[in-house]
C-alpha cells in the first residue's frame, strides 16, 4: 500500500478529539507534501516509530511542530520536539 497515493488508517485513542473520534477512519494523501499550519497529518513518532495522527501547529527550523487537538491527553511535539517532514507519511484529506 506504500506506493498508493492514498492510504487509509483507523484512528485509535482520543488525542484528536473532538475533530477525529476514536475508531474513525482517515484518508491520507501520501503525495501531498506541502504542509501548512492547521493541516492534520499522519506521521511516524520520532520516539518509537508508532504511526500518529496530529495537527500541524507551526513550521519550525527542523520541521513541523505537531500537536493533538485534545492537548490535555496528547503526547506530541511538546514532548518529542519538531518532526522532520520525511517522517510525515501524508496529509489527512478526509475523515469518516
Amino acid at each position: 500500500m506504500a506506493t498508493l497515493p492514498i492510504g487509509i488508517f483507523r484512528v485509535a485513542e482520543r488525542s484528536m478529539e473532538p475533530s477525529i473520534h476514536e475508531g474513525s477512519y482517515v484518508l491520507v494523501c501520501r503525495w501531498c507534501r506541502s504542509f501548512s499550519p492547521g493541516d492534520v497529518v499522519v506521521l511516524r513518532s520520532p520516539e518509537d516509530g508508532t504511526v500518529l495522527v496530529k495537527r500541524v501547529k507551526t513550521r519550525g527550523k527542523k520541521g513541523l511542530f505537531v500537536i493533538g487537538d485534545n492537548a490535555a491527553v496528547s503526547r506530541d511535539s511538546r514532548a518529542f520536539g519538531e518532526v522532520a517532514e520525511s517522517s510525515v507519511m501524508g496529509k489527512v484529506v478526509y475523515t469518516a
Partner: protein
Amino acid sequence: MNAVKAILRGLDRIVGFPVAYAHCDIPCGIYDPHAAQVAAHTVVRMDSLIADVVKGGVSSAEDRNKLVRYISVKEQHAEILKHEVEVLWSDYFKPDHLKEVPGLHELVWNTLKLASKAKQSTDLKVAEELLESVEKVAEAFWKTKKVATVRVKSFYPTERTFVYPKA
C-alpha cells in the same frame, strides 16, 4: 454512522487497515527494562545470601533476622519484577512488535511464572533462569526500538550479566 464510515469499517474487517494512534499521554513514552533487570539481580543476590546464612547454621537471633530480611527483599523484588515486565507488556509493546519478536507473549508469560517460582524457592538456579528470561525481555524491548544491545558483566556483587542499550 455515515455510509462512508460503514463501508470503511466493513473493508477494515476484511483487509485490516493500519492504525494511526492519536497517542494518549500518561504514561506513554517512559519505558525501560532496566528496573526489571535490577530486580532480577536482587533476587539472585538474596538467594546467595540466604544460602550463606543457612550454611552457617542459623544459630542466633541475628542470623534468623538476616534470613527473614533476605527472604522479604527477595519477595518484594520478584514482585517489582513482575510489575515492571507487566507494564512493558500491557503498555509498551504494540501488536506490530510481535512481528519483530514473535515469541513475545510466551517469553513474558515464562518470565512472570519464573518470578513466582523464584518467590517459592531459594534455589539459585531458578533465580538465574529468571535473570536470563528478563534479559531476553530487555533485548526484545530494545529490538523493537531498533537499538542494539550488549550483554555486559554487571556491576553488582551478583556479577553475571546485564543488558544495556549500545549508546
